């Protein structure tokens, strides 16, 4: 019988060894003095085709009707604008659908670039490449109008007492824990659908989401809900969304250039005005 536990020792040792040795992943930096960004010169997953990824399902106002190929919705429109700048025709753009995990799983990526409201953070940037930001989102709070304790909140202090729900993987959760620091542990859902359901059921008092999603929820999805307020952009890091690419992708510099061109020409701002509510106003929370 004591032999059995002896046999386990080497197993444990090997497991420890697998964890202990630090990985040395020194990949040479992509170098290029003059940027050549054309469909024939950039490295692609499928030659001749720009493979763009997003989530399935994708949510409005970023992708309308869960169909990114329509070009309708903010992120869909941004993707086609970048593709056009890179020299691709809309017909050469193919969409692939990836889970959040797939965007940072080791190994070859099934896309050239992806966009699904991924916030740029230094930790994430160690694992994948981000483009320069294509949007800067403020965080906002959505509550049912009939829940007066939540819908009448005007300050961060008012929010502390609430049961808050967020979608996993969003910077909203960081926001909740670091800026609001609620007295009760926040509820975390797979997607905003789960959070919306819990809000309707009264399990939670309010949802924390990015502002465009907040306006979309109140206008089109949950009757009797309201955008209680938004946070000032500078309150926490990780509000800027970037296109996601494989680490050291040869395409990163090209999409950066495309985004820079779209910003200077005012095209990016135009896409933003078209798809993201700027008319509706939401008050800023005070401390």
């Amino acid at each position: 019988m004591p032999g059995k536990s002896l046999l386990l020792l080497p197993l444990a040792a090997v497991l420890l060894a697998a964890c202990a040795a630090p990985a040395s992943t020194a990949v040479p930096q992509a170098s290029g003095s003059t940027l050549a960004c054309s469909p024939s010169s950039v490295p692609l997953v499928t030659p001749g085709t720009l493979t763009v990824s997003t989530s399935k399902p994708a949510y409005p106002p970023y992708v309308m009707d869960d169909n990114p190929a329509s070009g309708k919705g903010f992120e869909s429109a941004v993707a086609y604008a970048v593709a056009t700048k890179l020299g691709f025709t809309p017909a050469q753009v193919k969409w692939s659908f990836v889970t959040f995990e797939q965007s940072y799983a080791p190994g070859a990526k099934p896309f050239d670039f992806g966009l699904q409201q991924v916030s740029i953070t230094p930790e994430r940037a160690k694992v994948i490449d981000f483009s320069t930001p294509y949007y800067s989102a403020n965080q906002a709070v959505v509550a049912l109008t009939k829940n007066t304790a939540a819908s009448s909140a005007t300050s961060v202090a008012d929010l502390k007492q609430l049961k808050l729900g967020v979608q996993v993987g969003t910077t909203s959760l960081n926001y909740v824990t670091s800026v609001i620091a609620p007295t009760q542990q926040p509820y975390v859902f797979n997607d905003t659908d789960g959070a919306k359901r819990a809000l309707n059921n009264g399990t939670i008092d309010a949802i924390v989401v990015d502002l465009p999603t907040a306006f979309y929820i109140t206008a089109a999805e949950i009757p009797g809900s309201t955008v209680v307020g938004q946070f000032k952009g500078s309150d926490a890091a990780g509000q800027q969304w970037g296109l996601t690419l494989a680490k050291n992708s040869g395409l990163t510099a090209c999409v950066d250039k495309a985004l820079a061109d779209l910003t200077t020409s005012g095209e990016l701002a135009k896409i933003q005005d078209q798809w993201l509510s700027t008319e509706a106003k939401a008050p800023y929370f005070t401390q």
Partner: protein
Amino acid sequence: MSPDPSSPGPAQTSKARSAPAGKPGSTPYVDPARRAQSRRKTRRDVTVASVSLVLFLTLVVILVSRLPGWPAVQAAFFDPQIFRSSFWPVLQALVVNIKIFLVAEVVILPLGLVVALCRRSTAPVLLPLRFVATVYTDVFRGMPTLLVVFLLGFGVPALNIPGLTPDPLIWGGLALVLSYGAYVGEVFRAGLASVHPSQTMAARSLGLSPLQATRFVVLPQAVRRVVPPLLNDFVSLQKDTALVGVLGPIEALRQAQIISYELFNFTPYVVAALLFIAMTIPLARYTDWLQSRQERRTSVAAPA
């Protein structure tokens, strides 16, 4: 006291008598020389087995670490720094899982037993019970547990029944109870079926009522036989407590996912996996012990 005609030799008789054979759990007499030899053999076997295991694992490690993609996989799944930083938050969140399965297991056992007894009832008047129990088992064993969790966790609170709690831990836990109650009911039913009908007949001939025969003769034997498969279901339940996370509470796997999404690294999942394994090991060893005790009882106790 006349010498036993079947005893092997004069040198051993006294010892053989002092350790009476046939008593459950007692060690039968073994020649000391043979015992020493057998101990040497055990030691040699353990050494050979250990060396062989170490060689095998070393070979596996060397081969895997030489694969071109290994550094990337190692960085994504086995980052020592992330392992350390995520261990405590994931362990804290594991309390939610432990809470759920401890309460659920206590409720599941009687539920499963009742379902099994209902399904094995024979009285014509109890047909509705058999019907309900059979439909319950078919439906809840056949449905994906995740759907049961969604239905109870999101569906029932949406009915807006006054006075009903919207607490996702309670509804999620109840979903697991219903799902695993169906499995456990079938395990109990198999155990009950494994007790030979002659046991009931004998009990009845002694004057026990059908209820008494089930309670004092059939059930004790049935339950003892199904302990290993029952614990098997409980190990599975312990892992499935993570499903309650879809309703909002931050349990261990969700906490691992949160950190994984923050850092774009899978190591927190490995942490959660190790904790889940660690959580099931006590139960697994307890099952082994129960099983070996039962084997000892049934094999050694056989009369010579």
